[in-house]
């Protein structure tokens, strides 16, 4: 049932029906009421006028009995007939002296409206429950020294005739409403069908996608603008997904290639050892140490791969604590000093202020170590590696620059890609896996930071990292730069 209620088609049909029917019903009610009131008003005005005239006639004599001649009685009856009502005249002893129905002649009247009329007050009313019109008016004698009320005229009538004409109108309107309802229902259902047809068409196309035909082109399906927007976005999502699949396939093939290369070297080296007879011991030593190097390379690649895959789900396992970045960098420099000294590279550390930030110490250590290690690796002999650390009230900035071989401009956008190496030969010598920078970038991203690289061939490279001081988890930490 709930499903039906949520259906666009159902809601549209209901709305359409209501919009069509409600105004008519409203009109019906208003028209009927207005008609009724205006008829009643009109009748009331007529009655008032007649009664005033009659009262004037009756008031010509001081004694009401004198005024109530046979002719006058006939006139009174004529009027009460004409207006379908009852006319009574009550004398100042509150006795009924004239009754067009004759039934209450001589009876005593006890009525507030009549008492008030003897004090000069008119009374009129229309009772909406009983539909009776009533009018009570004093008969005043103006002769003599002062005005006296000699009697009171009471007129009352039903309004059946109004109700009857109204009932005709009401019947007609009800019939119209019923017909309108039926017609509107049919129209509403049909139009709602027309309106939801394009939506259904889209659903059909998307169903094909769901079934697995991911190359089904949905960007050209034309429907309502709102749905077209959705379809365009979905089309892009699918394209992204397919690109991701592609890059994943590529990654798998890259990985297999990378893993195979050291294996191939090991195979060649060990085969040549196996194949030769009387291999001298030095040769064994040499070949085995080469094999050892290849094994180390393989290990490093596998280690890096594991790092990468762990980092992919690392948002949950970030171990954030407040860390002195200065201390961390000093530690890294201490560890890497021997490597730098080997090639006579000077390590310079510039710290503008004490920086303390919320970071995952282990991960960030890995990232910064990687950057400094790269700078040393690709630096000239006797060159310089400068490390600087600064901060403002929101972020801290870590910069590593070397004056080594630099990175060509075409390569610069790709250096953070997995397994990307500018100079394959070079990095094989230095023992690189091609994953270092992508791991570093991933770690920086996990800290909601940014990493940038600038370089000129043969002049040097500078890596700049910016990380927020506070690790804002909730909103994903997307801060405007």
């Amino acid at each position, binding site marked *: 049932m709930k499903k039906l209620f949520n259906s666009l088609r159902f809601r549209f049909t209901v709305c359409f029906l209501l919009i069509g029917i409600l105004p008519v019903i409203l009109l019906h009610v208003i028209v009927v009421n207005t008609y009724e009131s205006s008829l009643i008003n009109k009748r009331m005005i007529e009655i008032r006028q007649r009664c005033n005239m009659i009262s004037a006639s009756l008031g010509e004599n001081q004694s009401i009995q004198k005024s109530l001649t046979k002719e006058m009685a006939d006139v009174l009856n004529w009027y009460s007939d004409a207006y379908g009502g009852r006319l009574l005249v009550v004398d100042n002893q*509150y006795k009924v002296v004239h009754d067009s129905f004759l039934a209450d002649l001589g009876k*005593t009247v006890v009525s507030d*409206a009549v008492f008030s009329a003897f004090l000069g007050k008119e009374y009129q009313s229309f*009772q909406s429950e009983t539909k*009776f019109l009533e009018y009570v008016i004093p008969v005043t004698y103006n002769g003599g020294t002062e005005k006296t009320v000699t009697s009171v005229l009471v007129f009352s009538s039903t309004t059946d005739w109004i109700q009857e004409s109204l009932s005709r109108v009401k019947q007609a309107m009800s019939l119209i409403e019923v017909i309108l309802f039926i017609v509107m229902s049919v129209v509403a259902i049909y139009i709602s069908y027309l309106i939801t047809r394009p939506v259904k068409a889209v659903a059909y196309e998307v169903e094909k996608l769901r079934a697995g035909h991911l190359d089904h082109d949905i960007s050209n399906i034309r429907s309502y603008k709102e749905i077209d927007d959705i379809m365009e976005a979905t089309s892009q999502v699918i394209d992204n997904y397919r690109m991701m699949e592609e890059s994943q396939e590529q990654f798998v093939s890259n990985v297999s290639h990378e893993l195979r290369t050291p294996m191939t070297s090991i195979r060649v080296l060990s085969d040549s050892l196996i194949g030769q007879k009387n291999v001298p011991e030095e040769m064994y030593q040499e070949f085995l140490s080469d094999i050892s190097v290849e094994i180390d390379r393989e290990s490093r690649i596998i280690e890096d791969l594991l790092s990468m895959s762990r980092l992919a789900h690392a948002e949950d396992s970030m171990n954030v604590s407040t860390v002195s970045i200065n201390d961390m960098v000093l530690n890294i420099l201490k560890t890497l000093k021997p490597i730098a000294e080997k090639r006579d590279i000077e390590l310079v550390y510039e710290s503008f202020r004490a920086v303390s930030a919320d970071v995952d110490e282990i991960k960030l250590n890995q990232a910064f170590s990687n950057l400094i290690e790269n700078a040393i690796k690709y630096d000239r002999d006797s060159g310089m590696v400068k490390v600087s650390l600064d901060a403002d009230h929101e972020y801290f900035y870590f910069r590593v620059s070397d004056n080594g071989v630099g990175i060509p401009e075409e390569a610069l956008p790709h250096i953070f890609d997995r397994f990307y190496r500018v100079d394959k030969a070079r990095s094989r010598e230095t023992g690189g896996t091609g994953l270092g920078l992508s791991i570093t970038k991933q770690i920086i991203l996990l800290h909601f930071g940014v990493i940038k690289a600038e370089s000129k061939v043969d002049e040097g490279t500078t890596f700049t990292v910016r990380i927020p001081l506070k690790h804002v988890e909730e909103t994903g930490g997307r801060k405007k730069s």
Partner: protein
Amino acid sequence: MKHRKRLTSILSLLLLAAVLLSGCGRGDALKEGAFYIYFKNSTKRELFPVEAVIDEQASFDSRIASVWKHMVSGADHAEYTSPVPATVSLKNYTLQNNNLNLNFDQPYLSLSSPNEVLFRASLVKTFTQFPEIQTVEISVENQPLVLSNGSVVGPMKGSDCIDVLATGLNAYSETVMDLYFTNETADGLISESVRIRYNNTIPLEQAVVRNLINGPESADLYPTIPNDTKLISVSTKNGTCYVNLNEVFLNRAMVSRPEIAVYSLVNSLTEIVGINAVSISVNGSSNVMFMDQFDLSAPLYRNTNFDLIQAEPSESAE
């Protein structure tokens, strides 16, 4: 949702309270068989009936005393007060020929006009409810009450006091009339005694015709005119009652002999005092040949030739 439920229940409680607190006032139907003491309305110059419990087994005098006591001092409600003026006291009373004569002291004559009438009406309407009392008469110092124009008031029935307006205490009148219907074979007229209750703003003639159209109460009797006939108008002038019906009366005659239908109307209406003749018209015109046989153009007089035996009395309401 919860709030809306609570709101509607509060509203309905308020409505109920309003209905209950409005009490019995103008326009409320009085219960048959209950005893009402007629007090005075606090805000309007009208009577305010309040139901009272009277011990029917007690003696006449003790009942009179109990009612009188209530009338004098029993008004403890905001809406009504005692109808008995403070200056007046009841000296004694006598019951003779179902007439209760209430004897008041001199100050009665000094009562101002509307208050005196109200007081008198409350006395009459209250005490005529006693089974022993049919009329109430007022005396002052043992002299019959006389109006300022010199006429003697005399004994008054409960029905002699009326509120002429449609929603007043006497908005409805009741009377017993003989209505003429027919039998299964429609070969004659049979009268049925019917108690007709009708609003004061319509004449008795109208109530009679309506009841005829609605048909008989008794299962042995049959109607003479179709029950969806519309009564357009009815009025009496100089002893002749002019009845205007719509075309259903003509087009769908229910009896084989036109006299049966016509005289059921005429005889029923001539039962009313003051009506001697009946003129029937259809949609305003009496130049009509009813059932192609009966000429309606002349006034019709009561005709007992078709009368058969009388049926059982029964009740009917307008």
